[in-house]
Every structure is written in C-alpha cells, then in structure tokens.
C-alpha cells in the first residue's frame, strides 16, 4: 500500500542523508521525496511516498521519529489530506499531433510552458491520479523527458 509521510526536520546539514540512509539501510524503498523549507525558520518539510505493508510502514515511521533531527512524522494515509505533485513533461508534438495534445492539456487544465517546432513542454499539477492519467494519455505521442517534484501534502483543515 502507498503511504504519504509528512516529516518535519531540523534544516541542517546531513539531515537528508540521515533520513535517506534510514530507508536504504533497512531495505525500505523511497518512491518519491520532496524537501523544502517551511513557514518556520530552521524547519524543513519532507514529503516521502513509500510502499509497504502496515507493519513495515509502522516501523519506518517509528524509526524516523527516533532520528534526533526529525521533529514530527505524520502518515497521511488514513488522514484527510490534500496532495499535489508538479510534473513537467516534454512530449513529441509534430504538427499533425499538436492540436490533440493541446486539447488534452486544456482538459487537464495544464499549461504549455515551452514550445519548439516538434516538442511541447507541459506543466501539470494534480494529485497522483491526475498526474498518472495525463502521463498515460501523452505516452502515445512519445514522451521525451519527465521531471516530477514528488508528492507534497498537507492535512486538510477541519470542516
């Protein structure tokens, strides 16, 4: 099962390798990882997506909490959270296909951010479902390169 872990850490040298090392050293796999500063000075947020059964993820969460530079760990799997990922896709776009690609871009409310004679670069933001869907649709045109931020997530406000 896929888990999204939101981890706040002290923003100091080595913290990334402590977290990454914990995963690799115990044979856990990281699917995506995003790190950036938060609203609080000195604190960064890591959003880590990983796969594993509940026991493994429970162990990962506990091990993360045990790291001295980790402040909080939340598993957003069973919590209502908003999740987004930003993806840049460079796709083949000869004249004959261009219109169709642009239609897909429109339907998914994406943006074209770079154009050349035979390529388009598309910016897409969405949850994992949307991102996978558009990548799927664009595949048949020939995807040249993809850059993804990995998921970022925040807990939903109480309604």
């Amino acid at each position, binding site marked *: 099962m896929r888990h999204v872990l939101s981890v706040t*850490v002290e923003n100091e040298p*080595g913290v990334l*390798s402590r977290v990454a*090392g914990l995963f690799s*050293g115990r044979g856990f796999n990281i699917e995506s990882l995003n790190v950036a500063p938060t609203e609080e000075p000195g604190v960064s947020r890591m959003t880590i997506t990983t796969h594993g059964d509940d026991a493994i993820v429970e162990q990962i969460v*506990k091990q993360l909490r*045990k790291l001295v530079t980790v*402040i909080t760990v939340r598993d957003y799997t069973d919590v209502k959270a908003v999740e987004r990922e930003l993806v840049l896709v460079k796709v083949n776009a000869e004249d004959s296909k261009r219109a169709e690609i642009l239609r897909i871009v429109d339907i998914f409310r994406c943006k074209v951010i770079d154009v050349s004679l035979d390529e388009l670069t598309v910016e897409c933001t969405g949850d994992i479902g949307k991102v996978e869907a558009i990548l799927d649709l664009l595949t048949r045109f020939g995807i040249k390169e993809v850059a993804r931020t990995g998921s970022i997530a925040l807990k939903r406000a109480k309604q």
Partner: protein
Amino acid sequence: MELTGAQILLKCLEKEGVTCMFGFPGGAVIDIYDEIPRSKVEHILVRHEQGAIHAADGYARATGEVGVCLVTSGPGATNTVTGIATAYMDSIPVVILTGQVPTALIGNDAFQEVDIVGITRPCTKHNYLVKDINQLAKTIRQAFYLARTGRPGPVLVDLPKDIMQTKIEFTYPDDEEVKLRSYNPHLQPHVGQVRKVAQLIRKAEKPLIYSGGGVISARAHEEMTWLAHSLRIPVTSTLMGLGAFPGDDELWLGMLGMHGTYAANMAISECDVLLAVGARFDDRVTGKLATFAPHATIVHIDIDPTSIQKNVPVSVPLVADCRSALKALKAELAEATSKTDFVAQRKQWVEQVQNWARTHPLNYKDDGSSIKPQYVVEKLYEITKGDAIICTEVGQNQMWAAQFFKYKRPNTFITSGGLGTMGYGFPAAMGAQKAFPDKLVIDVAGDGSIQMCIQEMTTVVCNKLPVKIVILNNGYLGMVRQWQELFYNKNYCETCMDAQPDFVKLAEAYGAKGFRITEKNDVESTLRTALYETEGPVIVDVRVEREENVYPMVPAGASLTEMLLV
C-alpha cells in the same frame, strides 16, 4: 574568559563528570592533547584506537556512566568504527571525540581526512561535525545528554583542528540551550497500559519474565526482582540481561535462545503471559518466529518504540523507561501481593519450570581425560564466589561464560551481544578495571579473539590495570568450527588456529605474568594463583578439549523447543 576550542572541550568534559578517557593522538588532535596535562581529565594511552573505543564501552558498562574516547582524524577515526557499532548494537553510552582536518580543507580529500560523520551515521545514536566554535560547548553537552538518556547509545563529535585552536569568550551553555525540540525520550508509562499489564500478570497461570539489557541500563533490576519474587514469576534473560536477576535464585531459569537452557526455552514455549522487559526479540533469542511463545499474551516494556512490534506481535506495549514502568507496576500490584497467595497460585507452574531445570540442567560430559572449558568457567565461579566482573570475547568462550558463571549483580557481565565483536573483551576489561581498580576483572577469552586486540597488553601493564585473561585455548575458531561440524560436514575450512603464539611468553614479553594449564588437576590451583596471588595483569593459557561444543543449541531458524542437547 577567553579560551581555545581545546580548552573549552576539556572544560566541558570536566563539567560532564568525565574523570578519564581512552585515546590515541595524531595531528588533528594535538591541540587537545596539548591541553590534557592542564585538565582534570586523565588520559589512558591505548595501543590501537579499537582498544580505546572498547575500553570506553567497557567502562560505561561497568559503571553505567558515559565512556569517552578521543582519537585523531582519518585512520584514527575509522579504527573506532567497529567499537562504535558494538556500542550501538548494545545501547551503550559512549562519546567518541574525533579530530578532523581544518574546516577550510573539509571535502578536499586533505591528508587524513575522512567523512567519519557520514561513515558512522548508521551506527551512532547521533553525531555532529562542529563547524562553529560558538556551537562547541553546546554540542558537547548535547552529545552527553543524548548518549546517556532515553535508549542510550554512542554519540560521535567530529572536531576540526582549527576549531580547537580558535579562541572565544567562553560561557557554559545553560540547560535551555541544550534542549532539543526534536528529542523527547519517552520515559513515563501510560497509566492505562500499566493497569492492563498488572491485570494480566496477576491473572496469569504461567507467567514468565524475559529480561534484556534494558533492565540493566535503566537500573531496574531491583524492581524486576521484586516483581518476580512477589508474584512468583520465573525469570529468563538474554545474554545482555545477565546479572539483572540473581543467577542463584530459585526462580532463575538461565539464559534463553540459541544457547539458552532447556528450562528457559521450554518455559517460553509454555508460558501464558510473557513479560518482555528491555529486550528486543533478537533472532538469536526467538528462533523461528512463528513458533515463539505460541501460547503467550506478550507484554513488551521498552523505552524505544521501534523495538515494539518489530519482530513479534505484541498484545500490550508499554513504551517507557523500564524502571519507571516496573515501579508503576509495583505500585499497581502492591495490594494484590498482600491479598493473593501467589506462592499457592503459581505453585504448579513454578514446580514445572523447576522440574525442567532439574531434569535438564546445563551440563557437559567429563571423563577427566582432558580439561573441559565449561569446567574452567565453573571453577572461576567457585573460586571467585561470583565476586568478579567477567568480560568475554566472542564465540564458544562467550557462551560458556554466560552459561556456567552465575551473575548476581548487574554490570558484572560485559560482552558484545548484538554485534558479536571478537577482540572486544580484553579492552573492555581494561575499561572496567580502570573504573574499578580494586575489583577482580577477568576476560574469558578464546585463542582466536584474544589476538585481535592483544596489543593492549602494554596498556594494562603500564597503567597497572591488573586484568586477568583466561584463554579457553582450543586451537580453533571454536564457534565457527562447531557450525562446520554440525551443519557443514565437518569441513573445518580455515578455522584451525593451532599456529599461535606461546601465550605465556607473550605475556612475559609484555611485562605481565603468564601461566599455562594442561592438566585438569591444576585448573583450580593455578587459577587461584593467577587471580589472587599474582600482582598485575595475567594471561592464563588453558589448554581445553579442542572439539567441545556449546549445548543446548537451537539451530538457526529452528523453534526454541528443537534444542540439540549434550
């Protein structure tokens, strides 16, 4: 007052109560060594950095305090890695101070530069590189705080040479500054869980305590002993837990696991409530997980949440310092102990486990024609009446020392449990002896392991640390040979070590005394002479039966009840 980094470091060590450290100098730490004569911290010069870290670890295990070692950058630092991992696996509080090249050169592959913080990240509780002199004192305080609190462990502080030379106006950081917002070791037990546990053990028909090293590091042995005695609960323990419960008590079953006693392993398999305290269900303890404690409701008390549910499903977890948890249990159960006649309630169960112990005691065949290693350990116990600190190397010697010596007090059995580091015992004994100059400290050794840190003979001789080394010399890497015998068709590939130094002459070459025992009849008298009538360090080379095996033995991956017996 303006002080250099080196001066600040030593001031901080003094403030932490450090009276002695083990180390070895080099270019990156000369500034620190330059200050040592002016400080109150005594320095023991070892002959290899592995000796320093193991000695600091042995000192920590014998005293329960933080052990300290100081080494230079590069090779000095890498030489400590095995010892750091040893301390990490057994949760031992040590602070390792390593020199580093000047900050301006870090990352340049400078002479004797190594990224020791990177190298030791997975085998330290935490580690630091000090890049700002203003952070030095705070970092040292945090290092000691982290090492000794929560689940203890090694903490490394990497000290660049220029930081040691820089001068600043020194003020000792106050407690507020040292606090870490991200580190709150969970100490107090959850009241509701305590009640649940109390309920369970009160009602249990066949309860069993399985105690580990956590009981010793939390100094919870008295509370545990109270619980066992007052509620009539038999006790078994891991290798790391030996000494927390008296080895001559009628409720003591001996060690469990791969080389555990019949009684302990049977009790695990039959108990209905298993109270695990400060233990971590290591694979050497549990055997095949699917058949471990099959009838038991498992209660697990541990300070480290990651230990809980890691290997076995636990019914009632209690995350807390073992001592606080057992104290809370005591308070909860005090009334029950006055109302209930636990002696009667547990009579059948206690009789059953005692019967197992009686019918299948630890034993060995002895026709008197050779010296059995177990006999030597038994004699050590008899002669010392248990009043000694026993350190061990790794292998058969370690298991026999665990099985045939009765430990009565915590911190008297010192061994590398988790990592199983050959070469650990002797330098650790040196550290324990430094902590307790007047106690009898014995290293029960194998002829293979002892050669891994033998260079510390010089250290014990010139520092007048009268460690007694008793080598159970079988001319083999015995434990590996035993596996080859039992599971690899006796293919003794590279485990015969009969090419060895003359250990008596070796002792003499180092300026110590050497004894050799080749006859069973001489074991007792020569040991007496070596332990009590000979001043200073001693090596006793006991030529034991070469192909003796450690039993019982649960083959790796088998159930605890599938023991091979003598």
